[in-house]
């Protein structure tokens, strides 16, 4: 479980997060929604240690993540699939997965087999350079690379970005399955609010760095004001 309390983050004079408090429960998907510049990506980067907060706390179960280096946070079991997927194009599919498996406690081959079973297309393209994969395949690779390390927390930043609607639907289904079968704590940052709300248990809406809604996903999806003013979901 991730618990965030009073988190503020600045980029010089610009305050990206202003006293954000929220939690993400184990085995549940928490969607973080909002328009461009709401602070969603900054929130994930702060959780994974890439950005140092000005104030506030972040805890994973009973361990503080504040002032920890990103590599240490990764080793604690936080997987982060960054915006743009972050696959290494010069590496083959298998090399990307081997890199992800560096922190895994299971044998490499068992981890690879498991991911190839979950994402069969990656098995077919294991020797291919990641730069040659389609957007959807790259997203699968990014998720498989995070999952092979057996994280307890998975941070996903705009996984549907640039994907066709059908691929996005499949991807959301996969995220839902992964969360359930691995008892993962998932924090899903999305601009595509309708897709995210379909699979999320809980939703947090950010606007200009502040939390404007923090409720179960069904309630957020049903709230006309939130849909219209903050999520751009005009009927």
């Amino acid at each position, binding site marked *: 479980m991730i618990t965030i309390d009073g988190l503020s983050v600045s980029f010089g004079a610009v305050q990206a997060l202003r006293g954000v408090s929220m939690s993400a429960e184990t085995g549940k998907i928490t969607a973080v929604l909002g328009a461009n510049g709401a602070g969603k990506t900054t929130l994930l980067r702060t959780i994974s240690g890439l950005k140092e907060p000005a104030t506030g706390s972040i805890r994973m179960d009973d361990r503080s993540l504040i002032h920890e280096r990103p590599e240490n946070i990764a080793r604690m079991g936080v997987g982060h699939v960054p915006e743009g997927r972050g696959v290494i194009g010069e590496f083959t599919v298998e090399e990307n997965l081997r*890199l992800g498996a560096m922190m895994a406690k299971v044998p490499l081959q068992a981890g690879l087999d498991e991911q190839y079973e979950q994402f069969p297309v990656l098995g077919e393209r294991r020797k291919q350079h990641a730069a040659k994969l389609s957007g959807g395949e790259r997203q699968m690779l990014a998720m498989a690379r995070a999952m092979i390390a057996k994280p307890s927390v998975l941070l996903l930043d705009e996984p549907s970005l640039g994907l066709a609607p059908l691929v996005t639907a499949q991807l959301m289904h996969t995220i839902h399955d992964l969360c359930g079968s691995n008892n993962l704590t998932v924090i899903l940052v999305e601009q595509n609010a309708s897709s995210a709300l379909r699979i999320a248990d809980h939703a947090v809406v950010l606007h200009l760095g502040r939390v404007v809604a923090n409720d179960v996903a069904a309630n957020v999806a049903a709230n006309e004001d939130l849909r219209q003013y903050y999520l751009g979901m005009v009927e």
Partner: protein
Amino acid sequence: MMDPILTSRIMSDVLGGLTNGVMYGLVALSLVLVWRSTGILNFAQGAMPMFATYLGMGLLSYHLSYWPCVAISIVAGFAIGGVTERVLVRSLYGKPEINPVVVMVGFLIVLEAVASAIWSTTPRGLPSPFSPIDWQIGGKPFGLSDFTLYEIVTGVIVMVAVAALFRFTKLGLQLRAAALAPEVSRLLGVRVGRMLTLGWMLSTAVGTITTVLVASNYFTGLTPQVMDSIFAFGFIAAAVGGLDSPVGALVAGVSLGIILQFVSDYLNSNAIIIVALIFLIVSLMVRPSGLFTKSSARRV
């Protein structure tokens, strides 16, 4: 049928060029290792291994034999590379590209001056365990000796070992990942700072092996400037092959060595630097980012 004397001369040039080319290739490889991991062109890449070689081979004066001194030189190379990265280079990351160039040129001058002050500029002969006398075939010198074979075999072993490290080991995977995508690597638990230090250590150790081979040559000896000309040709090889490409560095290094050997034999030994520069200019005109590199051109 080809004249046996001409055949022997060509064979001798190819083997001589191959020996020099392996040295250029190793220097180019060490430059590429640092460039790929930190984006810095290390102009002290000849001087740092020279210093390590003096530290290690200097123990010959204390009645230590050749091989332990070589091992100590390599360890000193690892240490100098690591300390340089931590103390001098780390503050240069993210700075304008001219800053590391100026600092590393300054470091080169300082190291050579300090080495001259401590060990003098008089060449110090190293007692190579291999004979420099050319083998004979039919009473004619063949262009290969025990010593040149030692240089070639060692060079090839180092190249294969570096390639295997990068291709087949966990450490190599992390070194490559840290260089290509530092932020993503950190998110996957890779200790990027440690990998950058290791990259410098490895590069200086490879440079030290090259320096030991060059300085062990009966006709060269160890001086503070021993690597200056080799560095220049290694630099040209790295630029031609592509600063991002270890394979390119090696192929360009060996090719340059063989071309220059023929130039020296059939034209004039003074023409080799001119030909080397023409080789560089033409190659960069054809492919500005290097013949083997996959990335786009980068300002240096």
